[in-house]
């Protein structure tokens, strides 16, 4: 009987070693007379290996405590007896003892934070960096009215924004880095007011610092970087504050400014 023609799916199944033996032999025969295809499949096999090499080490990484806590059953999930009987079918030997200890210690973390954070995270629709990047794009090109209150009235600006945000905020001084304050404005965030401070350097390059107080339940983060078209954004969360520094300048320069901003806010 004439064998079925070799399909593209057959070739992939061959690469992944999931062909029945007989079909496998037919594919090998086909490849023997099609060196280009053989070469292509070899490349695919090499991809499988390279991907495993690259990502398998991640399997051995220690799992963060917070994640372990989330993996354990939250107190709010009621366990009925039918499911209980299923539990017992999982043998203890499959679990390293150390893992169990870590889980137990993580439960308190879950009880304290997990449930609350779920609500907050789902409420935060637009990520901080995007809000900041959009605000930057909207206001920074404005030649005549880039800000609501100009730097000449910095005291008023600080008083006003602090009052509206319900917490003291003030623009960091970036003169040492060549950026002078132009002023600031109040903006709507996801769930309330946020502040935007704008700076420029001698060449007119503008930079905005977006300050949100909507991150009450989130954990602090390190610097993160995002790119929205031509706008680079460094952002981080510090207590209830979310900060995002946006500019159309390169990442290294922006990182320098972000570090200075962070330092000043830390030590105010």
């Amino acid at each position: 009987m004439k064998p079925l023609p070799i399909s593209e799916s057959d070739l992939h199944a061959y690469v992944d070693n999931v062909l029945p033996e007989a079909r496998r032999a037919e594919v090998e025969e086909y490849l023997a007379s099609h060196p280009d295809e053989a070469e292509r499949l070899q490349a695919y096999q090499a991809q499988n290996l390279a991907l495993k090499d690259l990502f398998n080490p991640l399997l051995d990484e220690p799992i963060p405590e917070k994640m372990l806590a989330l993996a354990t059953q939250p107190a709010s999930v009621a366990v009925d007896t039918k499911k209980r009987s299923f539990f017992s079918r999982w043998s203890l030997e499959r679990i390293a003892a150390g893992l169990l200890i870590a889980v137990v210690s993580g439960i308190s973390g879950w009880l304290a934070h997990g449930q609350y954070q779920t609500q907050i995270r789902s409420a935060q629709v637009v990520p901080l960096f995007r809000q900041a990047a959009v605000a930057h794009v909207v206001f920074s090109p404005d030649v005549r009215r880039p800000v609501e209150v100009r730097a000449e009235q910095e005291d008023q600006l600080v008083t006003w924004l602090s009052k509206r945000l319900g917490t003291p905020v003030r623009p960091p001084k970036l003169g040492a880095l060549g950026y002078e304050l132009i002023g600031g404005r109040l903006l709507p965030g996801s769930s309330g007011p946020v502040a935007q401070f704008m700076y420029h350097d001698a060449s007119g390059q503008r930079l905005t610092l977006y300050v949100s107080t909507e991150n009450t339940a989130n954990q602090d983060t390190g610097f993160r970087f995002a790119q929205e078209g031509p706008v680079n954004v460094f952002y981080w969360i510090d207590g209830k504050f979310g900060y995002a520094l946006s500019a159309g300048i390169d990442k290294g320069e922006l990182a320098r400014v972000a570090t200075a901003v962070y330092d000043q806010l830390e030590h105010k």
Partner: protein
Amino acid sequence: MDSRAILIELPRLRRYARAMLGDRVAADDLVQDTLERAWSRVGQWRVGSDLRAWLFSIMHNLWVDQIRRPNLPTYSMDEDDFDVPTRATQSDALEVRDIAYALSQVPDEQRAVLLLVALEEMGYAEIASTLGIPIGTVMSRLSRGRERLRVVMEGRPSGANLRVVR
């Protein structure tokens, strides 16, 4: 459902999330969201069915809902993130970096299939049900994804390699 059963799957969920998203922090966030959703929907899980496929399916849906929408490349700035996991030797490391770059050039939905095949070693039918797509779509995405990866890896002049030769 059993916490311990989920714990067993955690390393694999993290590996896949990291391979999909490229970023450690975003990947762990996705895994955590997956865990939360899994517990909130624990009633939908049928005892005896494949827990791993169920969790991957939840993670995939979350990724489609949340992560893809902003569609912005974000990078955490932890120093650890500059480490690319490698095998022992330097020349290997260059190769490994190349595939990481090439992978980032594969469209999302093709990368998802590619990784479930290569890392998870899932069957094509299992992938179809996990991702909620027909098996024919799995095969075409796999085919296009692999070819894309091959083209990028072969076509890209490797600056890193040139430097080594000098």
